[in-house]
């Protein structure tokens, strides 16, 4: 049962597209498990598209139309290839949002032992954030630790509990840098989660979008 959901403002920023990409991925994963949040996200996108439709239109040069027509006319009329998720994928328990990242399932990842009962496999999604899969051993207890930065976690398989609560597949968990916890893993199997953290070089304890002076 899912008990932990993204906050309203996180859902809003997801629908708007301003959420940092690694967090957006976590949210997409959660939506795969959660009909309630899926419906909310859908309505928020409706709000966004209404706002777009109500804007004062800005004139577009005719040459732009010509350029687009030239481009599409030279393209072969073949539909886009089917996404990876529609081909037969041997791990039905892996969320669709992650299948492109995991063409060979969890076992093929480069797992490294981080501490007792915890293995970590890192991904390269974005320069500001550390994105990794965590695998905690069934029935095990991970030693108490804090994270110096905020962490976003989505449970993908199995479950665990700590002093703050219980966490099962689909749960979307936000922890600040001050939280100290010692997760205890459920007995019925390893627990795999997707974790997103700011890289240690960042001094602020909050997720911030890259403020590129070139862009803003």
């Amino acid at each position, binding site marked *: 049962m899912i008990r932990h959901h993204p906050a309203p403002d996180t859902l809003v920023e997801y629908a708007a597209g301003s959420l940092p*990409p690694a967090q957006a991925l976590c949210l997409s994963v959660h939506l795969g498990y959660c009909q309630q949040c899926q419906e909310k996200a859908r*309505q928020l996108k409706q*709000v966004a598209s209404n706002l*777009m439709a109500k804007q004062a*239109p*800005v004139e*577009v040069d005719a040459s732009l139309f010509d350029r687009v027509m030239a481009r599409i006319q030279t393209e072969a009329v073949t539909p886009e290839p089917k996404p990876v998720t529609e081909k037969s994928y041997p791990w039905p328990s892996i969320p669709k949002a992650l299948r492109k990242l995991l063409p060979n399932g969890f076992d093929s990842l480069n797992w490294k032992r981080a501490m007792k009962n915890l293995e970590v496999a890192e991904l390269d999604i974005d320069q500001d954030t550390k994105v990794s899969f965590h695998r905690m051993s069934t029935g095990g207890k991970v030693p108490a630790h804090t994270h110096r930065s905020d962490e976003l976690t989505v449970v993908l398989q199995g479950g665990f509990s700590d002093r703050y609560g219980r966490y099962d597949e689909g749960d979307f968990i936000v922890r600040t840098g001050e939280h100290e916890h010692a997760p205890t893993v459920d007995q019925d199997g390893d627990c795999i989660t997707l974790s997103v953290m700011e890289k240690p070089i960042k001094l602020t304890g909050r997720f911030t979008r890259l403020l590129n002076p070139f*862009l803003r």
Partner: protein
Amino acid sequence: MAVQPNRKHGTVQRSNGGAQSKVTRLPMSHQGKDQEPWNNLLEQVGSNQDQQSFAQLFQHYAPLIKAFALHSGLERSVSAQADELVQEVMTLVWRKAHTFDRAKASATTWIFTIARNARIDLYRRLSRHQTELTADDLWFEEQTEGPINNLQQHSAEQQIRKGMDTLPHEQKEALTKVFLEDKTHQQVAEELGLPLGTVKSRIRLAMQKMKISLENTEL
């Protein structure tokens, strides 16, 4: 110079039979209410690669996508980025039209999603953050498997449109900054010199007016 696609002024031939129904050019504020013409055109592009239909879609949506691009400040750093976005989005509309399903979302919402994701990808490219994952991958859209309650969905959409028309200025402003100007709640707060809580509250109130509940029932 405005786009001049080759078509009869003011009429659209419906694809189902001989009866011609007139679709007049409505003022901008009403166009959100009538999705039928755009859904039809998009389906024509998807099933028949109909270039006339595509030209009409272009005439309607390109200026909105350009406005969307300008709203998010794309033009400020590198010129012609707004045009780049329009080109990218309309090309994708052509390529993906065969995946459009009016039962799942209106043409406008479908096109908005492409525009939003293209904008994200453009920013990532500009800031050299590229990985092989695109916005479509990261903002992954589940294919809803459950039965779609059209009546409920239609009524929800009506309430969003009605509610949006009655929003007080400060709520509309907050929504615009978050959804069109690509700003986080924090950035809006900083820009307007308001506490973060005030911005969140304005968005929440706007959602309430549109009968959207973002709170979770289990908490």
